[in-house]
């Protein structure tokens, strides 16, 4: 579904991604690990179309479409979802209004009629249970005053609502206690199917105890330098990143 070839990207003139290649097929879970500054978050930003980053070389196709030519909203409507490392607070915009607008914009893109208020609320009720999202949170402004764990749960809730084909979890485990981690991972696993795929970006291995990857990639200096089975994550946990740095550093 996703084909990344020789991707180079920069921010403020500084090159972060330097020839990244990655192929993701339906049903797969890919973990991307790496030391700080390797380019993990840049990858998710580039895939979702963050205007702060400029792609200087390479290509990304999603089901054959040139992803880089699409606006952030069209990428979402095509089925790409990113769970933010730092979800943004939007005071004054209610979760209900935000989600209804998003769901209906997706439906419009697919040529479907907007959901009625009651259909929408029913859908919301069902998906909320999946991530044990408190009713009170759903009635508040987007992420406003949410705790770190609530924000991450809210991200997975949005993922459940939008039913993406490819979800990118950007450091979803950062700042989570073990209970919140379990709930978030449970939600992600429940949403998993043979038709969708996930890219799990993480610095630590512990999330991968809950979301088991098919492949583990090591990102270093803007490129994937090593790919292995899930056991590679354990090795990284044990040995740290120094051996990677030694092996692939200049």
């Amino acid at each position, binding site marked *: 579904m996703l084909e990344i070839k020789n991707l180079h990207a920069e921010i403020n003139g500084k090159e972060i991604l330097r020839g990244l290649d990655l192929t993701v097929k339906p049903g797969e879970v890919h973990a991307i690990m790496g030391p700080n500054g390797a380019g993990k978050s840049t990858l998710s930003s580039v895939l979702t179309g963050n205007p702060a980053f400029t792609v200087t070389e390479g290509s990304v196709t999603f089901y054959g479409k040139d992803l880089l030519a699409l*606006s952030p*909203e069209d990428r*979402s409507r095509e089925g790409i979802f990113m769970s933010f490392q730092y979800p943004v607070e939007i*005071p004054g*915009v209610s979760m209900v209004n935000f989600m209804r*607008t998003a769901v209906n914009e997706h439906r419009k893109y697919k040529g479907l009629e907007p959901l009625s208020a009651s259909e929408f609320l029913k859908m919301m009720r069902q998906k909320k249970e999946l991530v044990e999202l408190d009713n009170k949170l759903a009635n508040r402004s987007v992420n406003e005053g949410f705790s770190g764990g609530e924000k991450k749960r809210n991200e997975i809730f949005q993922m459940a609502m*939008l039913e993406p084909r490819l979800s990118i979890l950007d450091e979803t485990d950062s700042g989570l206690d073990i209970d919140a981690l379990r709930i978030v991972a449970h939600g992600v696993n429940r949403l998993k199917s043979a038709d969708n795929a996930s890219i799990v970006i993480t610095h630590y291995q512990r999330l991968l105890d809950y979301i088991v990857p098919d492949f583990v990639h090591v990102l270093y200096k803007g490129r994937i330098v090593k790919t292995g089975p899930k056991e590679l994550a354990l090795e990284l946990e044990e040995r740290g990143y120094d051996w990677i740095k030694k092996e692939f550093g200049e």
Partner: protein
Amino acid sequence: MNEKQYIDLYREYQELIERNSAVCLNRGRADAAAWLERHGLPTRRHEDYLYCPLMKELERDYGVNVARVKFPVNPHDVFKCNVPGIHANVYFIVNDQFYANTHPGLGGGAVFCSMKTAEERFPEIVGRYVGKLTDGKEDAFVAMNRMLAQDGYFLYVPKGVKVELPVQVVNIMRSDVDYMATAHNLIVVEDGAEVTMLVCDHTIDRVSFFSNRMTEAYVGRGAQLHYYTMESSHDSMNNLNQLYVKQAGDSGFTMCTVGLHNGKTRNYTEVHLDESGAETTLGGMLISDGVQHSENQTLILHNAPHCTSNELFKYILDGESEGVFAGRTVVKEGAQKTVAQQTNRNICLTREAHMWAKPQLEIYADDVKCGHGATTGQLDEQAMFYMRTRGIGEAEARMLLLLAFTADVVDLVGFEALRERIRTLVEKRLRGEAAHCEGCRTVR
């Protein structure tokens, strides 16, 4: 020298003006004319008029209806403002003339009528209040108003009476030639009484208008006055509103002014908190584009201890429009335990839009809680991106953010039906649709 033609007009028609006026407005005309002649209009060097474009607009030769000839118009035909869910007592004012209407009235002895009628029916009340807040004001537009105003509305709510339905005042500007309207209004809400007002400003003819309305409001002990205004007028409207409020102990005053569309508007609001326990809330939501000018000048005087004031003004400026907010709060010596908060937030949607903000706090007491903040910026880029990654298009994301921005001002409006209506109108306005009530033929 733009004032000269109006001074000449006053002197030439003095007798006619006075004969056709509410008598109580005649006193002080000559003094006002003399003051204006001596001082002239302010220039843009004058601190309070630094960005005000209205002086220049007086170059135009506006017609003034000194003989009080009734304009041939049936306001019910041109204006069918049915705010759904609002059963209001609607009163029409065409230019500066009061139109009689047929509904039964406000109940409980509360009265809404013209000043001319009021001074015959309630000479004692009118005499006690009229001009007390405005006489002797050293201001050119006050002087012009005092020189030319012949009538206005009078709202009186007797002691302890709570007027159930809102009083809706619809100002309609209607003329075949450029026209100036001048009015002096008086609101008296006696001790323990309560009333809600909605004042709408509209234009129906494509000529230039200049409107100078001066309103005095007296809010008695424990009384409540809720005063909401909504402007939806066209580009050639020059709208000057001067509101002077005097509050007694434990009284409440809430103002919320919503500017949906206008030409050049200046609202001056002055509140005197004269006795302990008085609370005042001033709010404003101004949406401008093109070359519109939206200005709010406020002065809150904490003259007594234990009073609270809260100000919240927000502007959304598009195109080459210009916003001005100058808020001055003065806490007098001895006004201990004052709580005063002033907030001004503005969004400029283009590089050409301008906002001028001047928050001022003057504190002469030492045991007070006062704060102010003013910010001007663009829409939150991070929030925009976040929404777009959820599939919400740029235009829609912008709309959600702008509506969110307006929400807390609209929430100041104390009754649900009007709040909902304003929300809808603001959304329509931001979406670029005509923002006026259904069935209403007023033009923009």
